[in-house]
Structure formats: C-alpha cells, structure tokens
C-alpha cells in the first residue's frame, strides 16, 4: 500500500519499555523483577469475590452500565467520599475504566488538546509522556531532586523534593494539567501535606487541572500518611483522582481502575469512554465491588488488607534494602509503593563499557546485560532519556516482592539472587 498507514498521533510512540523488557525477560528466561505486579495471589476475600462473580447471576456475563457496574460505582462513591471529605454521586463523580492506565488515557483525551502543556514530575510512570503526546500536548518536565545525605545515612524518597521556584516557573498560560503521582512510581515518594499545598496553590493560581495518580495509596510505610490532593481546599473542582483495583487488591490482571472527580470534568471523560471502549467487563467489576464491601467493614482495623499489606511490604522493603547495601549498592528507601530505586554508579565506574547503542543510557545497558547474563530482569529508571533528571547518576529499578506473605517462598530467595549476582559481578571485575 502506497499510503502512509500509521496515524500521525502515534508518531514516536511505537516504543514501549515494558513490551521490550517483558520480551527480553521471557526470551532469556529471567526472573522478572521489573514490571510492577505481585507474584503472590490476591487476598482470599478478593479471590472469593471473583469466584462469586463468575458463578453467580447469569446476567453478569452480559453488558453492565457503561460508566460502571452500579454496585461498584456505589461502593467507590461511599468509600472514597469519606476519604476525600466530599459526597460523591456514583453516576456523576465516578467512572470505571480499564485499569488506572485506561483512566489516565481517558483523562488525557478528555482534557488535553493540541498545544496544551502538561507538567510531569520526574521520575514518572512512563505512560504519562506518550499519552500527553498522543493527545497533541506538550510535556513539560520538572524533576524531584535528592538533597545530599550524610555519610552512612540511607537515602530516602522523602529526601527527593521539588524546588518551589522551579515548579512555579513551569506554569505558563498554556498549562492545562499537572500530573501528580503519590505514592510515586518509581521513587516511592509520598508527597507531604506541605508539598501538596504547594502544588495545589499553583494549580489554583494558574487554573490548571490536577490529574492525581494514586494507585499505590494504600502502600505507605513508616507511619506515612497518603493524602489525596482532591481533599485540599479549592482542589476538588479541578482534580481527577485515579485509583486501581489491581494495586489495591494485588490483582493487576483484573484491569479495573476508576476516576473520581467533579461532574464538569467527569462528563468529558464519559464522552471519551463511550467513544472508545464503552463498557468495562462486568464480572471483574463485581469482584472489585464485593472486595471493597468486605474492606469497608474492617477499614482501619488490624484485619484490614489495607493495613496488613503495607506492613508485609515494609518488611520486604527493609530486607531488600539491607541485601542491596550488603553488596555495596545504594538503595533509596521508599516511603510507599512497591518499588525501590538503587544507585548503580559504583558499578558504572567498575564496568563502564557495557554493550549497547551509542546513545543508550547506562542503566538501560546495565539492565539488558543483567537480563542476558544474570537470571534477574529489571527495567531501568524510566526517565533516563531526560538528561536534566538525575544528572550524572544512573539508577536501577527493583520491584519488591513481599514474599513475607508467602511462607512457602523464603524471603531470602530473591534477595540472594541479587546478592549473588552483584558479588559475582564485582568479583569478576576486581
């Protein structure tokens, strides 16, 4: 065919790191510690909820309401209304989507026009940039930067901050939206009240929409508190809050997400939704509804999954951090999420010439080398193409596996893998 096939909106968007690394991990039979999904089962009550959904009412095999299965939108409205301090109408303030990924896409398509600017905080979950571009928008980056740590002190994600003046300088009359991700992927940073107030005041001052990706909202450690920016004064009317059943109930394969927001914004997302996928699968939504109903009954109590999971993850986090430190790597202790960043600059000085394309950043080469030579696959820090970020340092991304949950799998197994790997590497180089 002579005609140009690919639509212009897809220019430059063919590459996706997850597709590449997943393929490599499969090809080399590597342990995939990169992509963010648990290797343990969802909690029993969630599994049961799904079992009920697939063996119950016959009509759950058919279409449900386009904007969300009614019992799900009802429980989401009730559950999050309390948390956001704002009464939510299940019909106008809640939209169910295909994962939080689908929620993000719907939000960008609904509100970002050609020429609009979107402020993205680095490091960022990789899809924010291509989604902005696909909507014809222009991404404007601002980096979280670490303050120097004292000798012997472990770096923490809380140490990484935005410079208020720098952030303010990124807002222009063309700024349509700012994407906030807290807890942050990949850093694990949990934005504090003060930090959120800064973002909030700038959003209000410049009349900007805040797209708040809060998928890891339950995974916070060390007594940290997750705060939804939509609950701050003046923010409800300009914020879209995105959540994920996959991350909430450790069931990423269900691909159920949601957006909560004011009707004057949500109506545009509904228009995109009805012209893109129209309905989400019914039974997975039914499973999420029942899971939330169960959780609502024990919310805040020790038996709550939202209490138990972060507790277990914190143990895994600490174990992994210790393992990494023991081989001379420098982890950044996350306050939340299930990711952990490690500084590999020590390796770079010992092994500077890893195979790869001429302009390929070191961390990507390191990861590919790891996949091919060592049995652990781990995608690199995903904002490395932006030299303004993390200048001079390369980072590796690990995924926490809360094996503490699974008595049959010893917590040491994955950490040993990394330790052995690192030991072998440095020994061979020295």
């Amino acid at each position: 065919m002579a005609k140009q096939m690919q639509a212009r909106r897809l220019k430059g968007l063919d590459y996706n790191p997850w597709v590449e690394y997943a393929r490599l991990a499969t090809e080399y039979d590597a342990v995939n510690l990169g992509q963010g999904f648990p290797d343990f089962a969802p909690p029993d009550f969630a599994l049961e909820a799904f079992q009920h959904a697939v063996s119950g009412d016959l009509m759950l095999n058919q279409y449900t309401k386009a904007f969300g299965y009614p019992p799900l939108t009802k429980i989401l409205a009730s559950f999050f209304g309390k948390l956001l301090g704002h009464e939510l109408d299940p019909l106008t303030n809640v939209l169910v989507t295909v994962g939080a990924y689908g929620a993000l896409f719907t939000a960008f398509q609904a509100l970002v026009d050609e020429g609009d600017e979107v402020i993205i905080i680095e490091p960022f979950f990789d899809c924010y940039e291509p989604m902005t571009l696909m909507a014809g928008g222009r991404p404007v980056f601002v980096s979280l930067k670490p303050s120097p740590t004292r000798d012997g002190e472990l770096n923490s994600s809380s140490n990484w901050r935005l410079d208020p003046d720098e952030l303010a300088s990124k807002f222009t009359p063309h700024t349509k939206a700012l994407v906030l991700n807290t807890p942050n992927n990949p850093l694990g940073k949990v934005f504090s009240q003060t930090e959120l107030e800064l973002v909030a005041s700038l959003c209000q001052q410049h009349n900007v929409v805040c797209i708040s990706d809060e998928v890891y909202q339950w995974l916070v450690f060390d007594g940290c508190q997750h705060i939804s920016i939509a609950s701050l004064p003046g923010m409800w009317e300009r914020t879209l809050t995105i959540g994920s059943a996959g991350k909430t109930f450790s069931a990423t394969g269900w691909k159920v997400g949601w957006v909560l927001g004011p009707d004057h914004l949500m109506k545009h997302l509904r228009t995109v939704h009805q012209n893109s996928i129209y309905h989400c699968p019914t039974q997975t939504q039914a499973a999420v509804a029942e899971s939330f109903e169960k959780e609502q009954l024990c919310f805040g109590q020790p038996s709550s999954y939202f209490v138990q999971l972060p507790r277990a993850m914190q143990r895994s986090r600490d174990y992994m951090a210790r393992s990494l430190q023991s081989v001379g790597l420098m982890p950044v202790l996350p306050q939340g999420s299930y990711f952990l960043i490690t500084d590999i600059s020590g390796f770079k000085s010992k092994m500077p010439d890893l195979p790869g394309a001429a302009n390929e950043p070191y961390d990507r080469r390191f990861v590919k080398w790891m996949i091919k030579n060592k049995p652990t696959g781990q995608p690199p820090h995903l904002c490395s193409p932006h030299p303004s970020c993390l200048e001079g340092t390369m980072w590796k991304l690990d995924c926490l596996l809360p094996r503490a949950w699974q008595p049959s799998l010893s917590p040491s197994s994955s950490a040993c893998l990394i330790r052995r790997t690192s030991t072998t590497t440095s020994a061979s180089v020295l």
Partner: protein
Amino acid sequence: MLLAQKRLGSLVSSTKFLKTVNSSRLLEFSTSAAMSLKFKNTKRIEGLDKNVWIEFTKLAADPSVVNLGQGLPDISPPAYVKEELSKVAMVDNLNQYTRGFGHPSLVKALSCLYEKFYQKQINPNKEILVTVGAYGSLFNAIQGLIDEGDEVIIIVPFYDCYEPMVRMAGATPVFIPLRSKPVNGKRWSSSDWTLDPQELESKFNPKTKAIILNTPHNPFGKVYTKEELQVIADLCIKYDTLCISDEVYEWLVYTGNKHLRIATFPGMWERTVTIGSAGKTFSVTGWKLGWSIGPEHLIKHLQTVQQNTIYTCATPLQEALAQAFWIDIKRMDDPECYFNSLPRELEVKRDRMVHLLESVGLNPIVPDGGYFIIADVSSLDADLSDLKNEEPYDYKFVKWMTKNKKLSAIPVSAFCDSETKLQFEKLVRFCFIKKDSTLDAAEEIIKAWSRQKS
C-alpha cells in the same frame, strides 16, 4: 478583561458603589468564565457527548418493559463457557497482568481458528490483537490508522459508534445508504437492501483512507454476497483504501446464507483489519473481549494504540475464552459446536419474530444473519401527537411503544447520520437473542395490541 474594568471604572468614576459592584461582578465572571473555558472538552470530542444507548437504556430499564432493544442476550452462555471461567477463577496466578497484545493461549487459539478460514498462517503475536470488545478494536483501528483530514466511508445504517469514532480521529465520515429493491409481494429480506455500485464508487477519492464494512450487518442482518464484497474489494484496491471489517456476527448466518470474509479476497489481506467479538461469539457480552486480525504492517499500529491506552486486557477472562475456543475448535463440524448450534437456535427465534411482527401489521425485514430484526412501522398509524416534534418518527414511535405497550426497541434512525435519518425513520429494530419467556411476553403484548386494532 482588565481593560474593560478600567474603562468601566473611568465611566462611572463618581459612583464608587456602582464601580465596585460592577468590577467585582466582572472579576467573578472572568474567573468562572476562564475556569469553565479551560475545563471545556477537548476539540476531539466536540459534539460527541450524545449517545443513543444512554437514552434508550434508561427508557427500557423499567422492569415491566419487555426489552427487545439493546443487543444483549438474556439467554445463558453455553455451560462449558461458564465452567471455564469458574475454573480459571480458582487459579491464583491468572490474576496478574498478561501480555499486552493478547494473552498467549488466547492469541494461539484465535490463530488456530482463523487459519482455517483464511487458508494461511496467522502469526498470533504480530497479526492478532486482543482488545476490550470489538468496540475497542474499532477504536484501536481508527486511532491507529485514520488521520485528521482523512475520509472514511460508512454504509448507512451503521453501528452507531462508527461515526463518532471517525470524528474523534479528526476525519470526515462519508455516508452511503443501503437502498431497498422493490419487493413485489415477496417477503422483504435484508438481501433486498443493497449498495448502488456507481454511487459507492462516487464516494471514493484520494482522501479516502478506509471503508468500514459490517457483515453480517447491524441493524439489518444483511449478509453481503460474494458479488457485493467483490465490488467493495475492487474499489479498495483501485483507490488504495483500507477496509475495517466488523464481523462480530460472523457465526450468526441463517439457512441459505454464508458468511464471507473480505480479507480472503485477492489483494485484500494486506489492506484489511477484521474484527471479531467474544461477546457475540459465546453470548458473553459482559466479558468485553474482541480481536483484530490483519497483516503485521497494520496490526502493529493498533498495538501501538493499545500500549498507549489500556495496555492489556483482563487475564482471567482471556484465559477462559481461550479454553472455550479450544473446545469448539476441536468440533467445528459437530452440530453441538456453538458456532453451529447458536445460529440454529436463533433461526427459530427469528422466524417466530417474523410471524409475530406480521400478525400486528409491523412489516418485518427478514434478516439473513445477526440477531436483530427490523420492522416497518408506518402502517400502524400510532398516535404520536403528544411527543416532541423535532425527533424522527421512529424515536417517537419507540418511546410511545415503550410507554404504552411496555415493549422496547431501538429506532433505526439512531444508526443514521443526520442527512439520512428521514430515509429510515419508519423502521425500528428488535433484538431476538432472548430466552423463550421473554419472547412469550413480547408475543402477549403483540397479540393484545393486534386485538385492540381489530
């Protein structure tokens, strides 16, 4: 805004009170106007907020209404399909992300199934994409292949999402209606509705990027013949155009008809994306799984859209679907294979509906495929005077019928563009993939209606 305020200030400088009130009003106006301007919808969805289903589903939601409107089976999916999903729900590790472009066992099953029809190998990873329903495939195909300024030919009546999806991609829909041949006492059939080949060719030009084909057709149930498909294929090749072929009702063809895949015609594989649906194949619309099949050089763009929109579809549903497919793939010639048993079951229901509609003076168009039947309501002479004037006749008729007869349907003009609505406004669409008790209830209503008339 600031200038206006200053001007106003100087005009009423002596009346401070007035100045204060006016300028603060202006400030108020300017803030909320600015706010509402920025939070307006993007250009791509301008005018796309209306949706026929939202309106009519609400109407039919009354439990006392017999709903023959939305294309939703109320029959049970086959037992083994439900069983496969139950089995999958007991497996822990099927609850996490799977491959973005399609769960491996599912794309393998689809490849195996469709290779039989395409008479060629289909690469499961490069020539198949699993999407959120056929709806999602349509979206991926249009977003992936259609650009701003392109033209896309749409045959009227059309499944309602084609037009807004084409517009959302910034392209221009170009419409061509199906036209009925005179029937001359014969039974009116969906095959009587055809495209005029010259009229069709006149719609093609260098800007034409694609034509959207739907066979078997919703709402008419028309199953395009070899000759009709050849006309379309010849034009696609002549004008170097893509074909997006929506074949969700591919298994639902009735006696004397055969579903033909345009992608199997010479010169068509390389320019066709063929779309299928689990919902329509296994009567599980709520699973929302569909697929696109085509050459790598086209499918890769749909895959790019996928990785920037939803990334992956639900794992357990894909696995269950794969297992259900394997069961039927192994027995394609067996009458018990769902691809054979469902059309057999539906043909009986179709014939029942034809008889029922005829009995009350609703003139049906007998469908050759699909699970919808159209009826011409003009001879019924219903009193629609108390309904809004600007709506097409069939909209008013359906609302009247739902309210007064407790029977719902969908107006066919909902499947038309604004120019052709009037051509189809005497037609309404009934769905017959319904259990016997639903059709019994419909029969009761129709019999009572017919008694009232006589």
